[in-house]
């Protein structure tokens, strides 16, 4: 929290007139500093707010008293009474304002709590997270290995302290939470961290202590720090959590601390443990890690400086060959945590502001119409000696009531919107679960916005009151035939249409982007495919020799059930992208170094015979892998088209050979490409990753953790049947869950869908407001031009002519507004671009779609008044006109 007084209050105090503003603000800053020191920041902030409101009130009162207003309470009551006499106006205006103020408050609440509120770490701007963008291998998120971590920790002066977290984020581990063993084992997400992770972040525990550097030593006691959620879930927030035993993958850990609510890095972590004591040496070299670095910037250093120093390190150190062709990506922690959510929320906040603007334009228009209707009455009052300030006071009083009602309604609308929308937000959105209903800060925004609305709404009637000439009002009461009174309202229609088009066009763009995502061809048949998650107790290279046979037996057993057509084990989970299970292939004629330097990194997929048939993934050329591809036979692989393109551009892949390194394959061991499969969007939805398919029996180190089941429809008790089959064939395996593959492919769509939902609601609201606004303007125009229409019709104009004249005018204004709206979308294009897939922000069809939507609404809104005008009886109009 900043040491300064509340910024919103300071902003409000800027309204004070000179020269007093300076003295008062100085005094209040002084008083705030004093109170903060003696009574604490909370009381001081409260005091500052009270003072702000009181001071603004006192100045306003003095200002009005100077101008002859003597009767505030009377004026306030009078405003309420005069509003109550036009209930229609009151209801429409205050509801419209409530919608506008509510939208802004709701969007501000979410934006403030998710984006602006500081993370539970010390000085978050000083924390950066680093990984690499491997340009040569086209990997956007290439981790640091042990050597790289050590080199950066020692050789980058711009970083004061460095720790590391797993590059793939938190990972699942089988855990026993209750000591008595009655509770079943459950899966928790753990993050083994390297170095002084909590020290780098400056994160304080909610209970107990965090991990210390001395916990991260080989042979140290195994201790664990748990998340607030796990503490709540498993210990009911009891203090007996400290020193409790938490068993992670059969190793007992002592719980030493609990992190505060909202501390969620790496994402979804339940347990943080020190990496070294739990490190399993699988003979992969010094300490095999794939890590993202977390660093605290040295005083005065920047993220760019860190990136430059790491790059220099790569150049200087011969051991950094693995990073040849890689560029370090150094990003502030807050950006890593929020990702593109910031942009989405900014966009939605913009949408909320638009709704408010529309609401204000609408209500200002209604107030204007009301003032016009009462022009004669105002003239009478002026003639009777009411001062202009008195009349202005009346207008202010009415506006204040509208603002108060709108603000109150807005607070409810905001609370309701958050209550409904936040639970709909996909789980993948960071920090969204922390959002609570509007708090004091959001309500302060509501109040300030409402006050601004009140001032805005007062301006127009006040101007009228000042212009009102008593003689004119009493003498020449409105018998003009073709008054130009309606014409000034054209601007309102244009503004409304422009705002509505912006919202509608952005909504259409997001919708098209979402449809594009939906329309992506996954490359294999996703329907009727169920993915079962297994818990495999073996690590890489620890498999029993008959593991492939056991998987086959499980498959055969399941395929005997009616409704299950085919079963095939799989290695990687869906949507893993470039963050795991990848390798550097070696091509014939390449040395190891050349391969590391030059080759792209495909994903592994380790398969059993029948894989391509079960997934209905077409093999375009050559053959699929079969039961003949066993150990001892010629070693073969199938590559997908993306891998073929990347490894042998423009050449024939069939018959080519590739190898692998290190623990994966012996030197001189080769696999021959016998087939080319179609690209499948299994690893990533937005791009087609290169994939190499190996037969499990020829590279039997991989703990395949998934089963894909092709079913003919819903299978009753599927999970139980899978459990039975797995238990019967390999009791060491456990079944975690089963879900449709479609659900996995839908997960990346959850965010765009949510954005479309919220923006859709805002767009519909703006369209509705635009409709009401256009209707109001056109109805008023028709009323004021009734005599003119009567004359026209008497002179021979047909009803159709009158109707089309009015409709034409409305649509022309709306179209002009639409043009402005479209122009306003373009500057935000760069911002939008990152949220769109397969559609450009300037996509003419989407923009046109937005304009057409608004024109349609305008047409409907104009139709009723135009129809009314067309039905006028000229004789009657002229008699009473």
């Amino acid at each position, binding site marked *: 929290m900043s040491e300064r007084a509340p910024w919103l209050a300071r902003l409000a105090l800027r309204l004070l007139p000179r020269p*007093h503003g300076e*003295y008062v*603000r*100085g005094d209040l800053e*002084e008083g705030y500093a004093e109170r903060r020191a003696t009574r604490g920041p909370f009381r001081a902030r409260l005091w500052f707010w009270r*003072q702000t*409101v009181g*001071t*603004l009130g*006192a100045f306003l009162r003095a200002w009005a008293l100077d101008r002859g207003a003597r009767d505030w309470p009377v004026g306030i009551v009078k405003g309420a009474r005069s509003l109550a006499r036009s209930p229609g106006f009151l209801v429409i205006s205050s509801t419209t304002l409530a919608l506008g103020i509510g939208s802004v408050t709701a969007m501000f609440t979410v934006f403030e709590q998710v984006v602006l509120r500081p993370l539970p770490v010390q000085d978050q701007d000083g924390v950066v997270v680093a990984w690499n963008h491997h340009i040569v291998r086209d990997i956007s998120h290439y981790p640091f290995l042990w050597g790289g971590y050590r080199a950066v920790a020692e050789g980058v002066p711009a970083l004061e302290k460095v720790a590391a977290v797993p590059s793939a984020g938190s990972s699942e581990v089988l855990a026993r939470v209750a000591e008595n063993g009655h509770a079943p084992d459950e899966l928790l997400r753990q993050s083994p961290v390297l170095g002084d992770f909590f020290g780098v972040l400056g994160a304080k525990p909610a209970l107990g202590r965090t991990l210390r550097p001395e916990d991260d030593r080989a042979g140290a006691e195994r201790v664990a720090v748990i998340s607030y959620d796990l503490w709540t879930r498993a210990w009911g927030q009891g203090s007996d959590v400290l020193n409790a035993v938490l068993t992670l993958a059969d190793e007992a850990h002592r719980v030493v601390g609990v992190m505060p609510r909202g501390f969620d890095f790496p994402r979804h972590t339940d347990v943080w443990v020190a990496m070294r004591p739990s490190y399993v040496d699988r003979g992969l070299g010094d300490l095999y890690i794939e890590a993202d670095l977390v660093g605290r910037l040295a005083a005065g250093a920047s993220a760019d400086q860190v990136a430059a120093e790491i790059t220099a390190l790569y150049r200087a150190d011969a051991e950094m060959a693995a990073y040849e062709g890689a560029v370090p990506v150094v990003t502030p922690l807050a950006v890593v945590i929020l990702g593109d959510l910031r942009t989405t929320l900014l966009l939605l906040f913009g949408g909320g502001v638009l709704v408010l603007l529309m609401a204000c334009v609408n209500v200002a228009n209604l107030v204007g119409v009301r003032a016009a209707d009462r022009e004669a009455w105002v003239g009478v009052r002026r003639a009777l000696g009411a001062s202009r300030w008195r009349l202005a006071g009346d207008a202010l009083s009415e506006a204040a009531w509208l603002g108060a009602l709108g603000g109150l309604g807005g607070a409810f609308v905001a609370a309701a919107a958050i209550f409904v929308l936040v639970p709909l937000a996909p789980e993948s959105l960071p920090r969204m679960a922390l959002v609570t209903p509007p708090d004091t800060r959001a309500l302060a925004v509501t109040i300030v916005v409402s006050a601004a609305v009140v001032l805005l709404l007062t301006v127009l009637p006040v101007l009228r009151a000042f212009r009102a000439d008593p003689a004119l009002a009493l003498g020449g009461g409105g018998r003009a035939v073709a008054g130009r009174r309606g014409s000034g309202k054209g601007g309102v229609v244009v503004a409304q249409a422009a705002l509505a088009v912006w919202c509608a066009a952005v909504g259409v763009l997001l919708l098209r982007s979402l449809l594009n995502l939906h329309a992506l061809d996954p490359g294999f048949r996703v329907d009727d495919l169920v993915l079962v998650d297994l818990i495999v107790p073996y690590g890489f290279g620890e498999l029993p020799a008959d593991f492939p046979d056991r998987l086959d037996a499980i498959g055969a057993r399941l395929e005997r059930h009616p409704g299950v057509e085919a079963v095939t084990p799989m290695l990687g989970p869906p949507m893993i992208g470039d963050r795991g299970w990848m390798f550097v292939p070696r091509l014939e004629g390449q040395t190891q170094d050349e391969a590391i330097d030059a080759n792209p990194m495909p994903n592994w997929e380790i398969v059993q015979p029948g894989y391509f048939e079960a997934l209905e993934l077409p093999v375009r050329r050559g053959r699929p892998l079969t039961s003949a591809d066993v150990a001892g036979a010629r070693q073969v692989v199938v590559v997908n088209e993306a891998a073929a393109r990347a490894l042998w551009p423009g050449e024939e892949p069939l018959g080519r050979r590739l190898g692998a390194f290190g623990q994966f394959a012996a030197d001189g061991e080769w696999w021959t490409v016998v087939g080319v499969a179609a690209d499948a969007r299994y690893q990533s939805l937005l791009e087609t990753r290169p994939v190499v398919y190996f037969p499990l029996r020829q590279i039997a180190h991989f703990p395949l953790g998934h089963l894909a089941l092709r079913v003919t429809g819903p299978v009753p008790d599927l999970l139980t049947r899978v459990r039975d089959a797995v238990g019967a064939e390999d009791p060491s395996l456990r079944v975690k869950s089963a879900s449709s593959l479609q659900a996995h492919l839908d997960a990346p769509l959850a965010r765009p869908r949510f954005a479309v939902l919220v923006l859709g609601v805002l767009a519909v609201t703006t369209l509705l407001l635009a409709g009401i606004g256009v209707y109001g303007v056109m109805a008023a125009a028709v009323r004021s031009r009734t005599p003119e229409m009567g004359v026209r019709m008497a002179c021979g104009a047909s009803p159709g002519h009158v109707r089309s004249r009015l409709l034409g005018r409305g649509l022309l204004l709306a179209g002009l507004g639409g043009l402005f709206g479209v122009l306003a979308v373009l500057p935000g294009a760069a911002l939008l671009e990152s949220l769109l897939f397969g559609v450009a922000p300037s996509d003419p069809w989407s923009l046109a779609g937005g304009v057409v939507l608004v024109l349609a609404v305008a047409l409907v809104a104009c139709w009723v008044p135009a129809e009314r005008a067309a039905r006028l009886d000229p004789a009657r109009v002229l008699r009473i006109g």
Partner: protein
Amino acid sequence: MRRSLGEFELLLLFAVLRLAPEECYGARITREIEARSGREVSAGAVYTALDRLQRRGLVASREGEGTPVRGGRRKKYYRLEPEGAAHLRESWGRVRSMAEGLGAELERAGRPAIDEGGQR
């Protein structure tokens, strides 16, 4: 007889009288009133009222220097003018002469007496 002072104006003039000239600016006046009368007053009320008093010639003001804690903003110092002192004496005299000898009565007044108990 001069136009009498309101209660708040009375408090203000006493505060100005009490504070040393180099202490007599908005924040200190506000704090003084708060500390002595137990009444929290807004800075805005203090300034608008002092402005009124200045226009009536009861106080005078001069501009002072800024300090870091004020964000460099200047202070406005007030002092009592002879006219203000006369007003204050008169108002206070009226209050005091009305209150004279009523200390014990004031303490008792408004408290329910035994014989009135049933009627209240």
